[in-house]
């Protein structure tokens, strides 16, 4: 039986501003009404940066308010509601298996901007909408501004709905700020503005901006939606402007601290709606706008030119009762015109008409689940069987190391049951993921066979492509610094995967050549780096376009064993000072001489026990066992699970070990692997040393002082200070969860970010 939806929402959930916020309101309201709704996630062409799903839409999915719909799953939908026209700039791939009643495209943006430049091809939108859903497309402009730019005649069979599809607000989510004391006057005023970080949304000149956002003594301007672009736009902006990055705080909290909200934008911009102004009104903050907004907001706002803002604000603050009246007017306006309750009246006739169309066109004998009666409990997730798990390919480099593989394990272990991780790795630690229960293919790095790199790349491309076309993963995660041409070619010929490059920061300059691979992946993720301020490498210039997550850990600190249990399992005496040692890197950065010194320095203290943790990857001949009774050797993975048993550590400064040590509060002496092809571990170790979280010991510079450094590590007071410094960086979030979210949202993706036609 084909599942039947009342509304199928279709959107690119990466839209940062009003599109996603408005959709979030519609989803919540539909859930409140008991409608069965689904969501198809589209990757549209407008956003090239790697962005996470908007938090409002992510929350709606997580709370089960709307069901994720796989485009290859057959459903019927009385109403298909497509949010934002640009996602129909190209045909949908794959074509959704949706039997649609009515198909409405919500036009969140004018067809042309203020300078007349076309923002999207309306005819293509109509054509591609029909191609995807097999029904005539109806256009729903969100305001008179957008409607004004539409052609008067039908476009390729597309018609325009008679009423505007106003953005709606759920007043319950916008608590009113306290009334301003009438006697407060204009001595101290906070002016606010909130907009996406886009230079076009700011006045053209600094002079105009200063006028629109004045700062006489006692006044401040607070901006939510600041960014680096402001440095270029207004290099000498006033010190009284407090700049807050977009989405850095809840909008409600931001608005509650304002006295007045002011918005002016550049001459080339045409604001389709102005949702942020409505949010200010909903909170009871008086709003001052440019006069051209009057058709949208009528008497609910005040209007003036930029040069008149200061006088307008003074009048508002100094005239008894004026502030309260404007506050009331704004909130009442939102309630009456834009309340979420209007959604039902808007969609009910469309859904009813859509159901009739589906019924009339339904082939005889086909079965459709009955639609939900209005007011029934929401059961979006329950109306459909769980879709079959789809493979996600984790592809990684590494030879002797296992850092990339362990980072991928952090993601794979957290994926939902709708995804089935499969590994293809160059790491000799492949057994680690195989033992974790995952299908694991090993593809040797060209170093292994001593093969010419070009020939190896050709071979690798062929094998990987064969794996891809058999496995058919919708998502491929590639974890490596080197973007091998063999990998890139296979992914580009396959085409059907959403490709994600997970690359750690702290590149050496010699890796710059791989920077251009950024453009060949669909998404680029940088796991958070505690030592980011010490990163001056090539990737820094791309940082604003990648998704930077919190640090990614295989195990979160809270997942570790309690100390007594860990000590018992490792057979460690309670009274010993246990120092874990895990240096790794023996092959490309020999450390034997330094290691001997460090081992001696630890063991010369009678209370110590040295636990040398060897990698599960044995690449060399067996080493003889240690002779000292307090020196033990153990193979342990994941060692971090047992790390509560350690009093201190002497460790390499690779990404995983470093972040586990700091976030796990383990006092550590970091010995960076400074081989040419590695990431700049030395900067991690340096950062730890200078921030008090640990100590550094460089092989070639600190050998003579190594004993002294170990002595500091073994000093209880020093260790306590390190633990305290580490605690400052403690994070409740594991970045692996952010990557899982992106992978999960990409598993059932429709793509319209490129023309699907093959070019030869």
């Amino acid at each position, binding site marked *: 039986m084909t599942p039947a939806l009342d509304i199928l929402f279709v959107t690119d959930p990466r839209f940062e501003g009003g599109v996603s916020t408005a959709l979030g309101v519609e989803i919540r309201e539909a859930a409140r009404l008991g409608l069965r709704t689904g969501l198809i996630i589209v990757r549209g062409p407008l956003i090239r940066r790697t962005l996470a799903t908007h938090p409002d839409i992510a929350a709606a999915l997580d709370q089960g308010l709307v069901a994720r719909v796989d485009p290859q799953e057959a459903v019927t939908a009385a109403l298909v509601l497509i949010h934002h026209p640009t996602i129909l700039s190209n045909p949908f791939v794959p074509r959704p298996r949706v039997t649609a009643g009515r198909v409405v495209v919500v036009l969140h943006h004018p067809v042309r901007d203020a300078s007349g430049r076309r923002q999207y091809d309306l005819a293509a939108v109509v054509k591609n909408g029909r191609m995807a859903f097999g029904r005539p497309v109806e256009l729903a402009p969100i305001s008179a501004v957008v409607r004004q730019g539409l052609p008067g005649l039908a476009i390729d069979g597309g018609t325009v709905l008679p009423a505007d599809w106003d953005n709606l607000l759920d007043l319950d989510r916008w608590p009113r700020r306290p009334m301003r004391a009438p006697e407060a006057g204009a001595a101290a005023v906070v002016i606010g503005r909130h907009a996406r970080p886009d230079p076009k949304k700011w006045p053209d000149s600094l002079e105009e901006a200063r006028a629109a956002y004045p700062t006489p003594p006692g006044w401040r301007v607070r901006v939510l939606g600041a960014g680096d672009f402001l440095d270029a736009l207004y290099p000498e902006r006033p010190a009284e402007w407090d700049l807050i990055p977009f989405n850095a705080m809840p909008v409600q909290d931001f608005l509650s601290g304002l006295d007045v909200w002011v918005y002016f934008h550049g001459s080339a911009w045409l604001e389709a709606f102005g949702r942020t102004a409505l949010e200010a009104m909903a909170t009871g903050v008086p709003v001052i706008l440019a006069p051209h907004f009057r058709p949208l907001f009528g008497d609910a706002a005040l209007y003036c030119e930029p040069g008149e803002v200061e006088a307008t604000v003074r009048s508002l603050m100094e005239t008894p009762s004026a502030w309260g009246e404007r506050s009331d007017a704004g909130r009442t306006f939102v309630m009456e015109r834009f309340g979420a309750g209007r959604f039902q009246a808007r969609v009910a006739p469309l859904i009813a008409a859509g159901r009739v169309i589906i019924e009339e066109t339904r082939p005889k004998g086909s079965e459709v689940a009955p639609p939900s009666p209005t007011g029934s409990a929401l059961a979006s997730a329950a109306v459909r069987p769980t879709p079959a798990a789809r493979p996600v390919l984790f592809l990684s480099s590494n030879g002797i190391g296992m850092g990339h593989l362990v980072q991928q394990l952090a993601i794979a272990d957290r994926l939902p049951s709708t995804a089935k991780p499969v590994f293809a790795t160059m790491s000799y630690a492949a057994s680690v993921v195989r033992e974790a229960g995952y299908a694991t*293919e090993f593809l040797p790095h060209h170093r292994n066979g001593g*093969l010419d790199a070009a020939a190896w790349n050709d071979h690798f491309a062929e094998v990987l492509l064969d794996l891809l076309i058999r496995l058919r993963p919708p998502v491929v995660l590639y974890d490596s610094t080197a973007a091998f041409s063999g990998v890139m070619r296979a992914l580009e010929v396959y085409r059907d995967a959403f490709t994600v490059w997970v690359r750690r920061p702290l590149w050496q300059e010699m890796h710059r050549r791989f920077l251009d691979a950024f453009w060949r992946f669909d998404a680029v993720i940088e796991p958070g780096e505690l030592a980011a301020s010490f990163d001056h490498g090539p990737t820094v210039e791309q940082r604003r376009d990648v998704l930077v997550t919190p640090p990614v850990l295989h195990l979160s600190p809270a997942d570790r064993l309690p100390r007594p249990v860990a000590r018992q399992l490792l057979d460690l005496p309670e009274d010993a000072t246990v120092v874990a040692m895990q240096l790794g890197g023996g092959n490309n950065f020999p450390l034997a001489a330094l290691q001997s010194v460090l081992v001696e320095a630890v063991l010369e203290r009678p209370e110590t026990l040295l636990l040398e943790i060897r990698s599960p990857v044995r690449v060399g001949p067996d080493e003889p066992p240690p002779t000292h009774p307090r020196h033990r050797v153990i193979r342990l993975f994941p060692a971090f699970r047992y790390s509560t048993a350690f009093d201190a550590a002497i460790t390499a400064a690779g990404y995983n070990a470093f972040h586990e040590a700091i976030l796990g509060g383990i006092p550590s002496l970091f010995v960076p692997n400074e081989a040419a092809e590695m990431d700049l571990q030395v900067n991690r170790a340096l950062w730890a040393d200078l921030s008090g979280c640990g100590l550094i010991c460089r092989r070639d510079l600190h050998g003579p002082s190594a004993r002294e450094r170990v002595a500091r590590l073994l000093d209880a007071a020093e260790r306590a200070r390190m633990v305290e410094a580490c605690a400052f960086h403690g994070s409740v979030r594991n970045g692996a969860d952010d990557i899982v979210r992106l992978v999960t949202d990409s598993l059932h993706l429709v793509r319209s970010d490129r023309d699907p036609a093959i070019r030869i």
Partner: protein
Amino acid sequence: MRALFDRLLSLRSARSSGAAAETLPPALPADDATAATAERPVLLVSMLEVQPEEHPEILDKVMATFGASHKLVFLISTDAFGPFLARQSAIEYFMPIDQQILHRDLMDWPDYLAEKWALLLLKWRPASVIAYGMNVDRFLNAARAARAAGLP
């Protein structure tokens, strides 16, 4: 598959002609070393489904016999790479049959490995192939039989 290779070959041509699709270098400079033994004929030694405890003895025997005259490449079906890495041997890997069965719902592993074998022969162009335990054909047949038996 042939059409697929043709497509890839055209990509190779694009690379050699300096086309934009291949602006990335193939590897890091440190990775660019060509095998010092490139001129020696390649002996491909399959050790599929051989018990790991037997690996060191076989390795030592093969290396003593052919190490000086051949470049040795070992095809194994275990991820216990230690003995091979300790001897700095080149390795190629086939997923063991029990793992293929365990993950049979993902794809047809025997078919994939048959293709991989063809590609490995192109990669190494071995002068000879010798087998300890199952040879490749027997391994693939056993994998196909196990797959057929395991399918519902």
